[in-house]
């Protein structure tokens, strides 16, 4: 253990190792933060919930921060819901049992491009008589545009550019443009330029029953969204990118630990008992080296289940009799002859005790660097499986984001963020562990240290 403490102290002398340690710590903090802020169940609903949950977001939108690198700012998505204070709401009782409900949405628009679409989702409350709305749009330069007057039964969705009457009216005054451009453009600009400033959308409602109410959600679908962007299903990539961290860390750590420790113990038993046990282990290792890991994982994924935990189990199982057994064997062979083992035997220690308490601990310094360098291998293995379409069916992971991007031709369409974000995180993780592993290798192998 003292040895180990020394090694850790020595690690400080390697700048790359320190960078790696910081990366790993950052990842662990990130993973814990993710699991606390977005609990598992919530992440699954958000990622696999269906269109009901994702409708608010634009499709294939790059993250908001791309605007920092652009001269012309792309519009962000604007979501205003009167039900949670996105709009100013006034209710006024009139004669004959009528009520006037006014919803006023006010927002700033300071972008150099037009939104993708404008939509109003209505949630009316009524028993028999549906409320009636009149919608007006006020531009920063004070023009007032009538958008429409209609009944709103439950489930009404008003899509601006799909409304024939609105489009006809706009064509007469502003020219032949879809509503989301016509409403935001400077009049008589060609090609159309957006008019920056404060816009107002007003919904005046007449309700005909006592207790009747109306709420509406206004969404101006932008061309960028959030910190991570969205994919082809309008899903927020942030969820997958965040949840990818705990999944990758768990898979990498468990697989690396599982394979190294079992391999080490098996190698130790083989060396200690020698004879046919050793022979058998050697032969199994040779057969196992002949089994191609990836095709077998592919077969298991295709025929049995794609659960990440099953994949992990198979990986560990196939990794137990891996090539490293031979390295460990060579080291154990030397250790077996040590006098302290003889001493242990002399005082009557049993076989299992000698293997687990005397042989195995001796090899730990050799194993630690290997273990750390193995982690990124398994992290990338999980990503590889996901890219092959064998990712876990439920969990959002980095590899699955890459696969979605690959399947939807992200690189061909220029949606680079979709590939770069998960790939960057994978690289970050891989480099972090690899840098620490390489430094540990030099510390624990004195022969390398001199060089």
């Amino acid at each position, binding site marked *: 253990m003292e040895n180990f403490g020394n090694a850790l102290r020595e690690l400080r002398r390697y700048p*790359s190792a320190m960078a*790696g340690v910081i990366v790993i710590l950052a990842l662990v903090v990130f993973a814990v933060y993710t699991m606390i802020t977005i609990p598992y169940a919530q992440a699954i609903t958000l990622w696999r919930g269906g269109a009901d949950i994702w409708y608010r977001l634009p499709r294939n939108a790059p993250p908001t921060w791309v605007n920092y690198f652009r001269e012309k700012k792309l519009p962000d998505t604007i979501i205003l819901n009167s039900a949670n204070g996105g709009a100013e709401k006034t209710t006024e009782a009139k004669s004959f049992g009528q009520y006037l409900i006014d919803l006023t949405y006010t927002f700033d628009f300071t972008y150099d491009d037009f939104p993708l679409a404008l939509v109003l989702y209505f949630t009316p409350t009524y028993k028999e008589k549906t409320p009636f709305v009149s919608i007006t749009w006020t531009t920063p330069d004070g023009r007032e545009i009538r958008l429409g007057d209609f009944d709103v039964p439950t489930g009404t969705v008003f899509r601006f550019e799909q409304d024939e009457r609105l489009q006809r009216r706009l064509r007469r005054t502003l020219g032949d443009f879809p509503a989301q451009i016509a409403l935001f453009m400077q009049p008589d600009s060609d090609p159309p330029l957006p008019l920056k400033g404060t816009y107002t959308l007003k919904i005046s409602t007449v309700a005909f029953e006592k207790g009747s109410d109306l709420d509406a959600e206004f969404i101006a679908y932008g061309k960028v969204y959030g910190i991570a962007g969205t994919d082809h299903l309008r899903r927020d990539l942030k969820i997958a990118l965040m949840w990818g961290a705990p999944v990758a860390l768990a898979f990498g750590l468990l697989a690396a630990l599982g394979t190294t420790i079992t391999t080490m113990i098996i190698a130790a038993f083989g060396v200690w008992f020698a004879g046919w046990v050793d022979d058998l282990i050697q*032969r199994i290792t*040779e*057969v196992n*080296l*002949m*089994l*191609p*890991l*990836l*095709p*077998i994982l*592919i*077969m*298991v*994924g*295709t*025929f*049995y289940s794609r659960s990440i935990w099953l994949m992990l189990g198979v990986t560990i199982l196939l990794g137990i009799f891996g*090539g490293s057994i031979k390295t460990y064997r060579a080291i154990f062979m030397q250790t077996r002859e040590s006098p302290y083992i003889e001493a242990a035997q002399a005082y009557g220690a049993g076989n299992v005790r000698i293997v687990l308490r005397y042989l195995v601990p001796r090899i730990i310094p050799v194993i630690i660097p290997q273990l750390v*360098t193995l982690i*990124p*291998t398994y992290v*990338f293995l999980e*990503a*590889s499986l996901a*890219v*092959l*379409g*064998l990712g876990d069916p439920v969990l959002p992971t980095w590899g699955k984001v*890459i696969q979605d991007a*690959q399947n939807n031709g992200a*690189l*061909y369409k*220029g949606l*680079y963020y979709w*590939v*770069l974000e998960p*790939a960057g995180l*994978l*690289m970050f993780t*891989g*480099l972090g*562990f*690899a*840098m620490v*592993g*390489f430094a540990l290798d030099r510390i624990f192998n004195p*022969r*390398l240290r001199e*060089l």
Partner: protein
Amino acid sequence: MTQSAATLDTAPVESSSTGNASTLARVGKYTLVRGVTLFITVIIGVYLTVLIANMGGYVDNIRRGEIREQTSIQVMNDPALKNLSGDEKRKLIEKQIVLSEKRLGLNQPFPIRSFRFLRNALTLQLGRAQLMTSDSGSRQVRLIILERLPSTLLLFGTSNLLLFLVSLLIALGLSRRYGSLLDRAFVALSPTSAAPGWFYGIFFILIFSSLLHWLPFGGMVDAPPPKAPLIYALSVGKHLILPVTAILVSAIFVSVYSWRTFFLIYSSEDYVEMARAKGLPDGIVERRYILRPTLPTIITSFALTLISLWTGAPIFETIFNWPGLGRTLFQAVGLFDTAVIVGSTVIFAYLLAITVFLLDIIYALVDPRVRIGGSGGGV
């Protein structure tokens, strides 16, 4: 034993010394033993594959269902059987199904069938694909796989040989100039090899195909394939650049690092110092005193690289749309084409075994312990 006898016969023609003949005999015997061991290993490996692929009889049920469907359609649509009553037709269908299952051996218990599968797999009778066809239109799994094998060999052969030679040369150069800026750069960059080749492939496609439009996104030749052989070769070469570079970049730093370290350890041995003190030129010291004793290790590590790259092929080829064995496996997974999946796995096992076997022979030729007859070495 015939093999070693043959080598014995030819040996005296090449060299009159008896020492050489016995060396060849020993190498021959070693090769034979390794060959037999590896073959047994392949048999066990393939049998395990068959067991996994069988997935507790599920595949058989799929096939039984297919047989039932096919026979039913056949009987129902046969104009000659139109006059039979529904009951008679049903009986006929049942009879036909029993016959088909017997013909395919589905009526036998699994342990017996598993050995027949094993024999078929080992003799490369890989059966017929359910959905996939080869480019020439055949449903034979063997033909599908053999058709794709050359492109896989081309890609991975080229890149592995390049990787091997380039990193060896760089490592030798660096071990001479140990501590230089370049040397430290390689050491610092070695952790980047944690990412696999396909990962770098994505970045390269992004930069060189998507952004710069210099190189194709993927595939092996232009579409339509050029007719003239020279232009065809040039087109293939152009498509090779990105995947080969991706493999090189993903593996070169770590292999240069490990070999440079290796050479450094060996060049600090006493006998190397001695050779230097004698005033031997650097070239000779390098070749005879450093390269020669490290050769077996270099070959082992080459073998391990090869093996790991074989298994990495499915993703790599998919990313680059390379029409090789790996992508075939990937497509087969998508189509649930069991025959092709099992066939590919068997071919992978064979390829691994052949790689290991060839390297074993080379190993035997360079390892003095095998040649002179000390305790036998192995990979």
